[in-house]
């Protein structure tokens, strides 16, 4: 196969350091290559090139607005490739205040130098307070100003997590958090924005999108909400891929979490919003495939969609407007089926 030629010694050493052997790596590549529509050989070559030239590492600036750092923790949780290898080997992370060694003026200088240099990938976690700039000051300036100046010189922007993609929970607070797209629109700045929503960002979605950008130099295809189509959108409706779907159709709804008989029944009556969630969680799952919301008896609250949070509340009943719509759709489909 000639794998040895493609995977140079340097790269193999690095992979080993990240806890990956050659076989893991090739398996990973072939899966990702399939997603990207590239031949495996072409992909491996490109990734190998991207990884073996550290001096050309793309510059990344990561800024945190009205955030809880959950998306940063999602970054630290990435397993394939490991977070350490992304941070140290694949990107030149010039500013990330939860990770970087520097603090205060030293950190701010690194930020301003990178912004001046330009041509970087900007990652934004958290929303921007629109009620008053003073709800978020840092490094002596409003966060809004930091976003605007760093966006202007960026090549592209990743809005990670529900807050930066759509406003998320802060949208419903008095600080009136708004999304990156909205903040840039208000400032008259036009830049490509990729919304990698969910609360927090899914580690796989984050890793995959970063890898896509590194490998192709482009942003991935987006759905109508500005999200990567490989993970979100009309073709990815959670409800269609839900293992509890049969019970939804059969009208078997879980009412008691203590009852082993009901364990796999549909969670709609407890408040699940899976029928309006356009995301691949049901197939991809979370935490390296160990589990996800619906498999711990928890509910989907459509945290990857713009309806989250204010429009999906109340969360733990079927009394929200959205739940009522889901029920009406079900009744409608059922009566049509009955007619047939």
């Amino acid at each position, binding site marked *: 196969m000639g794998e040895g030629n493609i995977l140079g010694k340097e790269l193999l*050493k690095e992979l080993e*350091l990240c806890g990956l052997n050659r076989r893991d790596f090739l398996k990973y590549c072939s899966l990702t290559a399939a997603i990207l529509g590239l031949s495996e050989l072409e992909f491996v070559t490109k990734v190998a090139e991207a990884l073996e030239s*550290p*001096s050309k590492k793309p510059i990344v600036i990561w800024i945190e607005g*009205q955030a*809880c*750092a*959950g998306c940063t*923790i*999602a970054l*630290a*949780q990435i397993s394939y490739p*490991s977070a*350490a290898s992304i*941070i*140290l080997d694949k990107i030149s992370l*010039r500013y990330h*205040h*939860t990770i*970087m*060694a*520097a*603090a*205060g003026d*030293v*950190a*701010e200088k690194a930020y301003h130098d990178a912004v001046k240099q330009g041509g970087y990938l900007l990652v934004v976690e958290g929303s921007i307070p629109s*009620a*008053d700039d*003073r*709800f*978020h*000051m*840092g*490094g002596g300036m409003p966060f809004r100003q930091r976003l605007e100046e760093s966006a202007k010189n960026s090549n592209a922007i990743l809005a990670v997590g529900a807050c930066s993609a759509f406003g998320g*929970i802060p949208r419903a*607070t*008095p600080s009136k958090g708004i999304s990156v797209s909205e903040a840039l629109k208000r400032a008259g700045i036009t830049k490509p924005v990729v919304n990698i929503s969910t*609360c*927090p960002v899914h580690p796989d979605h984050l890793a995959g999108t970063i890898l896509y950008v590194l490998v192709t130099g482009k942003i991935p295809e987006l759905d109508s909400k500005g999200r990567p189509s490989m993970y979100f959108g009309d073709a990815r409706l959670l409800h269609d891929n839900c293992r509890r779907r049969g019970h939804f159709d059969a009208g078997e709804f879980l009412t*008691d*979490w*203590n009852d*082993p008989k009901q*364990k796999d029944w549909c969670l709609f009556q407890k408040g699940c919003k899976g029928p309006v969630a356009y995301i691949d969680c049901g197939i991809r799952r*979370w*935490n*390296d495939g*160990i*589990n*996800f*919301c619906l*498999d*711990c*008896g*928890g509910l989907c609250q459509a945290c990857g969609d713009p309806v989250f*949070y204010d429009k999906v*509340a*109340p*969360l733990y009943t079927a009394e929200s407007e959205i739940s009522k719509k889901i029920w009406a759709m079900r009744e409608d489909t059922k009566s049509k089926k009955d007619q047939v």
Partner: protein
Amino acid sequence: MAKKITIDPVSRIEGHLKIVVEVENGRVKDAWSSGTMARGFEALLTGKDPRDASFVTSRFCGVCYSVHQLASARALDAAFGARVPWGGNLIRNLVMGAEYIYDHPLHFYQLSALDYIDVMAVAEYKGKDKDLLAVRDKIVGLVKAKDTYPLTPRYEPDEFTVKDPEIVISAVKHYIDALKMHSQARNMGAIWGGRTPHYQNIVVGGVTSYPDLNQIARFRTMLDKQKRFIEDVYIPDVLAFGTGPLWPLATMGVGGGHYNYLSYGDFALDPEGKKVVFPAGIIIGLNPANIKVKPVNTEKISESVKYAWYKENKPVHPYSGEQVFDLEKKDAYSFVKAPRYEGKPMEVGPLARMIVAKNPDVLSLVEKGAKPGAVARHAARAIETKLMVDACYTWLDQLQTEMTKPGFKIHDTEHWEPPQTGMGAGFHEAPRGGLGHWIKIKNKKIENYQAVVPSTWNASPRCENGTRGQYEESLIGAPVPDPENPINVVRIVRSFDPCLACAIHLIDPKTNEIRKFIIE
């Protein structure tokens, strides 16, 4: 002459923190701690279905997310009159145990270690260990490529910085290993938590995740691996640093503060809670030779807003907390409020818990001459991680027995619907310290919601009588020989494991008052 130094942002912490210190003759003379970002979660919760609270408050913080889910669920349990079955409490304990196991090592390696080691010393490593040589080559490769971000820039190493290549290189290797262990510990919590960050299984009345024996086996297998890392790598590293190169900082007691400690107590080891991992207690003015622990009375907690950007009000108990943002307020310098116990500032967190518990390992360090402060906080954190690992094994055994009994329960389904009216408080010892949530329910909706979180205690500004908060007080006297390089200041602040997003979430529920300060 005194010189003011501003550190904004303080990095490698959760959230947005500004520290200002006044330095005179090479020592910190005065200090101010400011939380600089606010969202306003309470206003959002007002009028909502009370059950939303555990989901929403989890988003106070994505580092210690589920601690709020649990404290909130406990406040709801009290307000709903729900009795969580032992099976539900066991699963709550296990997923929170997993959180300790990832969170404490993450704090030591990822958030703190860079303050104590000169990473660039690895270039001098002369040993033959294959793994360590690979680490050396990696760092040297970064240096050669002239791109060592995010390991540089940094504050310059000082006389306390570890420069021995052998120690530094193994610390850097462990920094990388710890990230891997971190990710696996989170996966362990996800076995019942569903996913991380932000578990999905903790709700009022118990948990949603009905367990099976395979999950117990899986958790145990993963725990075995974590136990080895904690016992063989994390604890030895912390002790080697603390009793070796950092011993002068430890015996000076740099970062001591007020020496008042609070632990609410938590983590029952039996259904009645007769035995717990962390006992409750209050210590005012610690005397290490004669530790006096008093019982906790949460009615004695009040919050001052004198120096915070909220409308002037006298200090009140969290149940009656009424805060309106006042961004114009004279003398205010933080979004963090100032909680006090009997009017006194308290430290919460691992050091507080271990001193209240009179933990023998911590006391033996004190006997050898260590004083409570920055280094002691790291030691206490490592020591209690081991206690949590041991407790997880106990809970796994108990859950295995419990779940095979007929009538096994994880949830109080009878108290699932919100009451017409009610109030309740929920307490939890989170990795960062004592956490309290208070809720009032009216017409089945949230009427008022308050949380006093660990970093509100530790990061608070001054209160009514001008007494400094714990970060502020702990900085007094800290050596800062070079004002351009205030590395001891960030060492002290980071030793608390700050979490600022949690600390700032408050606002008055009356929407008409909120409008007053919103500038449209």
